């Protein structure tokens, strides 16, 4: 019977599991995000570099093609190693940051502007779950430009170079996965926090970018003024590059300074602070003390 004929009846059917509920918000938000032209353009542009890297990997594993075509000297510089993946991750992480700055501000600000949080939190959805669901939205989008292309390039190299190469270099794969995951979590939290506190999308997006550059600048100032090196711990870029260097077995371009363990600790502190700030803002009702 048509719905408009039969009238309202209370729902008494089965309920889905809490894990399935977690994916409800992402399922509703992803199509809306992908309907934004700028997001799609950015996604497409950000795939050029992985494409170029795939071509690089192909030729590195088919040097005879280059030598036959008179490009023999070029073959000598084609090496797939930690430095190659490090450069790949640097470029893609920049795209991820820009994408987070574009897609992130629209995630939480509308719920705050429309006072929708009481509707979410009056349902079996905690603040933590809400943040996790929103983060999954961003992690999903950012994976398209980081994790998935990264593992694709690594997988392509492993399949072309053979089992022996994979056994000797599997840590590149885990390094790519773990390194990108840390970066995605960091930029997602920055984007969501920015979205929670600034309702204008453009300003919130600019704030995401500024967060990384300004903190890097502050870290440099601290280092110069106090003649120390721990000021670099304030720079998310420094933290990430140092951690990636350790994960991929690559030397970092700077000498001295905090090591990867210290950087990891500083990153966890940063993530904790961002989560705390976000949770503070995301309340179903404002309480005026």
């Amino acid at each position, binding site marked *: 019977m048509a719905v408009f004929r039969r*009238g309202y009846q209370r729902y008494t059917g089965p309920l889905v599991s809490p894990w399935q509920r977690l994916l409800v918000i992402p399922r509703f938000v992803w199509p809306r995000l992908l309907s934004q032209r700028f997001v799609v353009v950015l996604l497409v542009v950000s795939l050029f570099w992985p494409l170029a890297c795939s071509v690089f990997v192909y030729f590195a594993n088919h040097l005879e093609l280059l030598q036959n075509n008179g490009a023999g000297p070029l073959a000598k510089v084609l090496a797939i190693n930690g430095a190659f993946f490090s450069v790949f991750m640097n470029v893609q992480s920049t795209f991820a940051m820009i994408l987070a700055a574009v897609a992130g501000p629209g995630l939480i600000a509308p719920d705050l502007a429309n006072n929708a949080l009481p*509707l979410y939190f009056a*349902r079996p959805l905690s603040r933590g779950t809400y943040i996790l669901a929103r983060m999954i939205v961003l992690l999903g989008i950012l994976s398209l430009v980081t994790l998935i292309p990264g593992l694709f390039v690594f997988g392509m190299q492993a399949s072309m170079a053979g089992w022996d190469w994979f056994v000797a270099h599997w840590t590149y794969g885990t390094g790519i996965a773990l390194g990108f995951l840390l970066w995605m979590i960091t930029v997602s939290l920055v984007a969501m926090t920015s979205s929670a506190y600034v309702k204008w999308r453009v300003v919130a997006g600019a704030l995401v970018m500024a967060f990384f550059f300004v903190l890097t600048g502050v870290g440099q100032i601290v280092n110069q003024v106090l003649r120390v090196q721990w000021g670099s711990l304030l720079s998310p870029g420094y933290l990430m590059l140092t951690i990636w260097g350790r994960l991929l077995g690559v030397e970092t371009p700077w000498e001295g300074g905090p090591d990867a363990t210290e950087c990891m600790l500083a990153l966890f502190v940063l993530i904790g602070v961002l989560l705390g700030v976000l949770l503070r803002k995301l309340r179903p009702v404002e309480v005026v003390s």
Partner: protein
Amino acid sequence: MVTPVIAIDNLHVKLGRREILKGISCRLGASGEGKAIGLLGPNGAGKSTLIQTLLGFHKPSSGSAQILGLDCHKQSAQVKARIGYMPENDSFISDMTAVAFLRLMGEISGMPPAAALEKAHEVLFHVGLGEARYRTVGTYSLGMKQMAKLAQAIIHGPQLVILDEPTNGLDPAARQRMLILIREMKEQHGMNVLLCSHLLRDVEEVCDEVVILKDGLIVHQSDLEAERSSDRRFVQLEVAGDDSKLAEAFQSIGAEAASESPGVWRVVLPREIEIGVLWRLAARENLRVTKLAYRRDTLEELFLKAVGHLRATPVTKQEAPVHGGI
């Protein structure tokens, strides 16, 4: 024993340093399914804080609040799965169509996607938004938004629906429609309703029980349903002369009475006492009856009395905290 819809035991809630709820206790909706409870009180009485505590938004500083036998704070997720909430203020996702908005809310409540979509259509037709269901909620009028808020509160078929000022901003026709929907919710669908409203007439029309809060305390609680079904006769008597001994006279015939102001009495007559007895009583006391009329306390009078805007009357059996006379 039937589990009460809402059971509150010595509930204290502090927001910052201010204590908003100061140890309230009550059992509401104890008589079964499909009950409507009215929550009244002047501004700042703690109504919203009570609702938000029931929703698990605030942690009690002491005491407990239970909904359907589940602790609102410790078993928050289970409680929230059983309730629907219609907030007072605008709350929606403005750039979503009503169908998508309701489907989202249904799915977050745990409904499977297909069922949520079907119920979204069904409930939108039910509240009268069927023709506008593909419009974005942001383009709705105030009355339509109220209906959309009601729809999202009942899409998952909750056992308790908490309605915060549901008739706010509605024209008379829309208000009547909203009240009919609320009545249908309890009478036809067996939902319990907690209705918070400043419009006492709405509460009187719809509710079976009423709780009046003032300064974080319950100052009155009535079972309106029991009062309506009782066959006691409520009489308003106005007399001229010295009525100082009238209270004793009423007691002598087994009637309960309260003086509202000099010469104005509210009397509850037992079933076996005829109205003519009052005339004889007045004559015996040398009083001239200027007015004698059957009437009950309106909820408005009760409210004003409870919050202290009407002269306090001697406490009678009817106006004791649990069974006030209406």
